[in-house]
């Protein structure tokens, strides 16, 4: 059974690239375009890792992480934030909310996979 990763980003191209890279490495991927969409997709789905952007419409990354941490089924699910170098302060904000891992954009797929492998194995 391959591990499932939820990718939350409002940019379709980021979702596409991340999904392609992860699928290539043997993961299953669920994607969502913002925090609210992601919460609705989490509902009942077994997810081994959540990768989320910060800056999104509707529900941003921080609010989303806080919501996830309130869900009993997902409180042990690792969350990895996507940030850009101009958002260093956001990393701390994310950590405070409960997302301990991060990937700095722009990233190439190998960098993404390395981070993911630290958190889950395919």
């Amino acid at each position: 059974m391959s591990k499932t990763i939820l990718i939350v980003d409002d940019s379709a191209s980021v979702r596409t690239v991340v999904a392609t890279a992860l699928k290539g490495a043997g993961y299953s991927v669920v994607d969502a375009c913002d925090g609210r969409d992601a919460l609705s997709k989490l509902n009942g789905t077994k997810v081994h890792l959540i990768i989320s952007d910060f800056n999104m419409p509707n529900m941003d990354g921080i609010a989303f992480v806080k919501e996830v941490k309130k869900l009993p089924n997902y409180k042990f699910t690792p969350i990895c934030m996507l940030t850009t170098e101009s958002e260093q302060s956001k990393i701390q904000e994310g950590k405070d909310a409960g997302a301990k891992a991060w990937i700095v954009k722009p990233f190439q797929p190998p960098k993404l996979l390395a981070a993911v492998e630290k958190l889950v194995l395919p």
Partner: protein
Amino acid sequence: MNLDAGLQAFSEESRELLQSMEDTLLQLEAKPDDDDLINGLFRAVHTVKGSAGLFGFDRVVEFAHLAESVMGRVRDHQVAVANDLPSLLLESRDHLGLLIEQALDGKPDPDEDSIRTGKALSARLQRHLSDRPAGEAQSRSIPAPTAPVLPARREAGVENRCWHISLRFGTEVLRNGMDPLSFIRYLNTAGEIVNLTTLEAMPDPAEMDAESCYLGFEIDLNSAADKEAIASVFEFVQDDCLIHILPPNSPIASYGELIEALPEENARIGEILRAGGALTESEFGTILAGWEKRLGGAGGEAESMPEPSGDAGIRPGVVEPSIVNAGADKYKKVKEHKEEENQVVRVSAAKLEDLVNLVGELVISGANTNLLARRSGGRRLADATETLAGLVENIRDTALSLRMVEIGTTFNRFRRVVREVSRELGKEIDLVISGGDTGLDKTVADKIGDPLMHLVRNALDHGIETPAERESAGKPLTETLHLNAYHDSGSIVIEICDDGRGLVREKILAKALEKQLIKENQSLTDSEIQRLIFEPGFSTAEQATNLSGRGVGMDVVLRNIAALRGRIDVESTPGEGAKISIRLPLTLAIIDGFLVQVGKSSYVIPLDLVDECVEFSEVASESYQDSQHINLRGEILPYIRLGEVFKCHTPGARDSQSQKVRENIVVTRYAGQKAGLVVDELLGEHQTVIKPLGTIFKNVKGLSGATILGSGEVAMIVDVPGLVSRVSESGCPQRTNPVNLEEVRH
């Protein structure tokens, strides 16, 4: 890895984002304090930057970063939306678009022009950042792993050629979703784990929390990697954990400090290190001897490093809660605002095209089934197929509505044009848009953009006067350009109204004479004169401005609109303004048709255009002597015989049968004009899937397409507007040189 799908997504996404940036910037000029707009703008450029980075489009990233920094300052109210900032950001947006285009085209070397523009814009953007503390904008370094680096000593190193890693996971690690084991497994990618000792610091069973982590590891790693690479393995847990990494052959003293730094008792750690092979017996002895020398230093024992606290990740004071709350509130607002527009599913246009085609086939075979059922006489079968036909009709409408887009998107493109033109020409122009929610088929919307653009530019350039002229005419200084759209009998009507000088009769006539489009002394009606502007090669601008082009426009506009089965009308009141109306069919794919028979052929007349059907012999008895008109309840109705137009049967044959064959006249109405089409038989309503005619039929007049009947036969679709204009023209007083719309149309 195949990035094609990603690039495709990026291309679409960036186009949309750039469009939204433009819309937002234009709105921002009117509402410079709207936080939602500013946030949206920031997010758009931010997303472009992030996505471009994925594909290594460095020039895009670099420029977007600069623009983002400026927008970030605007968002934080450090820079006000004023002066030239909107223009600068608009230009930056254009440049960004150019860079993206070049990146997507895979152009390795940017042309000099774009470099120059980029530099100029960058310098102007920098000015808005200049009072920012130095270096802040460029803070792009990833925080260095904070695992304490023990200072290297010049002393002799230990014999151990492995890296030694001491790990104490914090109690919160599991709750943070981190699995200690996956980090150990991942460490294998950096080298070979030679030795691993697990330490458990289990509390009393009563105090133990099953969700807490009490694990520690002493690891010897054989690796060629550098310290940073090894430390980066533990990047995500370094906040909560105690991590010490000693390079191979580290000085004995470093190990001494390590042992002291670890929370466990020194003797136990020493034993573990020795057992694991990190230290030899004698090396450990040296460390022990060192401690003994410092006897009495009780503080030297263990506790130099605090136990990782459960809340290691939380650093109070880093972020003010009020800021977080303010941010949350802001997002809430945006959330409510954007709620509606996010409830959409993106579907590629090609898939919709397929669906519409399939629905077309469904409609055809549905019509066939219906026909067969009716012929079979089975009442229940007929009922069932009737229900089915109703459903098919619904599916057809729904499928077509999927492709419906709002004309407002197209209209909004003109905000920018109007803004720029008003600056360039020194005219003050107010663009009023109404009916933006009027829907039309995407294929039509895509094709109407360019003709509309031309008409708008023409109105701006030729129609609207300078402020001085307006003042002397006693008009308000700010001119109004009004774009309007509405639905009317199966068509969408788009109007472009301006309150400018209108079409100047004398000017047009003079120009037409000069271009030899008309002859001297030719008498023309106002509407004929207005039509002249659509003649090829006609242009009244004294000098070709870069705005409305070089006079190649209006005839092309007319042709493009005719190709969409549309028509264009001009109304003008000298001195008060002009109104150009474009009438277009809502969809190009399927129409409700009215099936008629002429001779042995079937023809379809678009049902929207059919007013009524009358038996021809009835009205013919009261007809005028002139066989081109009949008296329809006191109204003069020009008519045309389809059979003659399309030469379906020889007139002789018809004449000999005229007493027997009952003919019908279909009264059609298009844009206020009525005309009759005489046919043999009325076959009733028919859902018509329009198949385009091949290029061979390009010059055939009076037909707009073909369709396949349920029986598999082909029926031609009658081009009613074309025929109506032909009929009404033939009824008009003769002109020496009629401006024939037909000739332009085809």
